[in-house]
């Protein structure tokens, strides 16, 4: 066997010569490939209350901006306290008179109808989602919209089988629930919130995020077309004040919130002492852990997917890379190589991998945190890429030589910024991974099955992905540990959070 020629013997000959490099140049550039489907936007969107689009009693509107070019897309109504009041009254009435009494098999028909109508209009919704939020069209087309439909399909299937949600117990809907959702997956979060609540027989007042209201209101059109009884779903739009009114109203038996840990804590404080049920899906600072025996190229792909998916606007983003020291240099070199072929730019181009940052405020926050990383001495790498002149963009960024005390290792950046740390032993990896206020998700990359099982029991995270990252399915419960929140969404466990056990 001594004669076997492998890399180590051949590379030893190279000592002292310049390192070979790959050229990712412009020999073959892709022509622009814009998605051209009509998003069918209205110039002005009203509130959706009691089955009708209703002008706000507040009389006020705000502009929804396309983050890719800073142009105005539409005007969105601001829901004041009186509008929120009207929405809750409509929801209560719907619960008392129609939806709460309807057999599950009947409710299922409506949910199936919503799912199918969403599939029918998938391209239109994908374009609207991309224009409103800035995410690449390939993601809204291949992930957000189909996954939103999948959530309605899945929960439609449960609606007539609710006797099996809690074996041995009888269950009942909660009544009216208030829901506030974030701007990173506007349509998908609507589906995550609405589908289980409706399947269980609850009525809903939902507030989408200020910067991304359009697809929620387009979903309201589908809800109208599906002939859902008036008041079962009400959608009120606006900023933080509207959200506070939705969360603080006396009618809802439960409030569900997805957003930042900071706002989640404010809501929890304001509701302390009430008998409202709560579920919170908050921030994260997930560790993506690469062992030396991992399939490295696939791990690099998982790192890319973990942090650059949706510009890193993902609460479960793998924003801390923990890499085993023996392979750290190789992984970082491969990662930099891979980043050179990422395409940043117009979100509507089908070949774009990284789109626009959702808002000016978010861009400022990312920029500030990246500055702090440089100031605290971490090594910055960004591939050469030309960003569009107009719009809010940030290049894919990694920091090497990060330690647990850096701000970029502790705070949620919510952008395309990866902090790379190293570890020596599995115990150190677990210790570093768990040394955070958050506990939403984690990733483990190793060829060793037993290590995956051991790590997944020791990591304090709601989801642990093994040799993959950012995998979602309506059947799988999702939610956090510690300051990443409580309650689960998806699967049987998600339904349990929308019912009372009798």
């Amino acid at each position: 066997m001594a004669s076997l020629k492998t890399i180590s013997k051949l590379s030893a000959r190279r000592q002292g010569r310049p390192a070979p490099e790959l050229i990712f140049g412009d020999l073959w550039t892709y022509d622009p490939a814009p998605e051209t489907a009509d998003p069918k936007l209205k110039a002005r969107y009203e509130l959706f209350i009691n089955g009708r689009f209703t002008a706000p009693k507040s009389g006020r509107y705000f502009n929804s901006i396309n983050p890719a070019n800073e142009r105005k897309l539409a005007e969105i109504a601001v829901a004041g306290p009186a509008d929120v009041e009207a929405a809750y009254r409509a929801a209560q009435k719907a619960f008392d008179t129609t939806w709460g009494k309807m057999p599950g098999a009947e409710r299922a028909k409506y949910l199936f109808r919503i799912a199918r109508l969403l599939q029918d209009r998938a391209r239109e919704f994908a374009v609207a989602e991309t224009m409103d939020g800035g995410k690449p069209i390939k993601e809204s087309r291949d992930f957000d919209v189909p996954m939103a439909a999948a959530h309605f399909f899945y929960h439609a299937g449960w609606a007539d089988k609710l006797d099996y949600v809690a074996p041995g117990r009888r269950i009942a809907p909660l009544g009216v629930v208030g829901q506030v959702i974030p701007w990173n997956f506007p349509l998908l979060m609507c589906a995550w919130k609405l589908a289980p609540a409706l399947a269980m027989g609850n009525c809903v007042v939902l507030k989408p995020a200020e910067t991304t209201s359009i697809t929620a209101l387009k979903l309201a059109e589908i809800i109208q077309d599906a002939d859902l009884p008036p008041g079962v779903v009400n959608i009120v739009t606006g900023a933080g004040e509207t959200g506070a009114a939705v969360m603080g109203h006396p009618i809802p038996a439960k409030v569900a919130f997805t957003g930042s840990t900071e706002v989640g804590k404010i809501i929890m404080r304001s509701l302390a002492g009430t008998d409202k049920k709560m579920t919170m899906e908050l921030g994260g600072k997930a560790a993506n852990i690469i062992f030396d025996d991992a399939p490295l190229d696939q791990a690099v792909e998982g790192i890319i997917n973990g942090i650059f998916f949706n510009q890193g606007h993902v609460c479960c983003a793998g924003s801390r890379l923990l890499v085993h020291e023996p392979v750290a240099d190789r992984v970082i070199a491969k990662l930099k190589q891979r980043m050179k072929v990422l395409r940043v730019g117009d979100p509507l181009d089908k070949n774009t991998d990284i789109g626009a940052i959702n808002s000016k405020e978010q861009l400022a926050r990312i920029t500030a945190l990246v500055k702090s990383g440089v100031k605290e001495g971490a090594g910055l790498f960004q591939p050469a890429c030309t960003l569009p002149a107009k719009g809010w963009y940030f290049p894919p960024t990694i920091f090497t030589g990060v330690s647990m005390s850096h701000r970029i290792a502790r705070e949620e950046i919510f952008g395309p910024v990866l902090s790379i740390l190293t570890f020596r032993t599995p115990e150190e990896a677990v210790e570093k991974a768990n040394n955070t206020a958050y506990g939403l998700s984690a990733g483990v990359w190793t060829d060793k099955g037993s290590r995956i099982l051991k790590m997944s029991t020791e990591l304090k995270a709601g989801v642990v992905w093994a040799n993959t990252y950012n995998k979602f399915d309506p059947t799988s419960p999702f939610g956090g540990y510690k300051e990443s929140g409580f309650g689960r969404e998806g699967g049987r466990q998600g339904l349990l959070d929308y019912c009372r056990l009798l």
Partner: protein
Amino acid sequence: MVGDLMNAGPSASFRRLFDEVGPVDAVGIEERVAKYTTRSIKKSAKLWGLRMAVTMVDLTTLEGKDTPGKVASLCQKAVHPSDDSTVPPVAAVCVYPSMVRHARRALGPGAKVRIASVATAFPSGQTALMTRLAEVRAAVADGADEIDMVINRGAFLAGEFARVQDEIAAVLAACGPATLKVILEVSELETYDKIRAASFLAMGVLRPGDFIKTSTGKTTLNATLGNNQVMLEAIRDFYLDTGMAIAMKPAGGIRSAKQALQFLIAVKETLGDAWLNNKRYRFGASSLLNDLLRQIEKERTGAYQAPYYFSEAAESY
């Protein structure tokens, strides 16, 4: 004693080779290549890709019923693929050793289109090494510019890696100046781990500019984006470690222009610009060429031509 155990027999070499090259995750590699299929290649980028693909074709006929006449018309097609004179010639013709001299007669000495021949008891490789080497020497003597050999899969699967590598080295010596392409026959190796390991085994003895190649085209599963990707990544890792640029040839199963473009996207995004030419990348194919021509014509005229303009059957070259 422990040392003896570590060094003893096929299992030790097996472990060492696989430890050095690392594992491949099947789910991950297939997700990666699925992203190539969602790239949208339009207009001038598409035309560039189609023309490039034409220049990369090893136009192949490997049939028991091959005749000098068939080979002559294949050579004509290779030099002059279409009545559109802007379409470049293909890279090579690929024929059985007995047909090499007919191909040389048809193409003439020093032709731009090269002659590749599948020697070494293609496709099984199950003859004595001496016989295989004699076949290689004969094909080169008859005028072959390139030799497509098969590895000894039996030896590989039995863990006799040194034997596999020594045989490749012997064939390489028999090639003389001819370019060598080493066929791994990926569908018989079955797993991505083994495809990666076999790639390194071959590259360890090749010269820069020699090829590793997926398949013979004679088994059920041939070139796929998945095994192409595993081999491209092996070439990349080997190049970055040693500075030696090995070329790649997927073969079998690439029938449409759309597929060919997806393979080229994989090359562009994995190995970069230096591999986007027919010295570093080839397609082993027969019916692919006419679909490339059909698509080039479509880009030129804006409309698809009637199906009888471009035959789907490689028989009709």
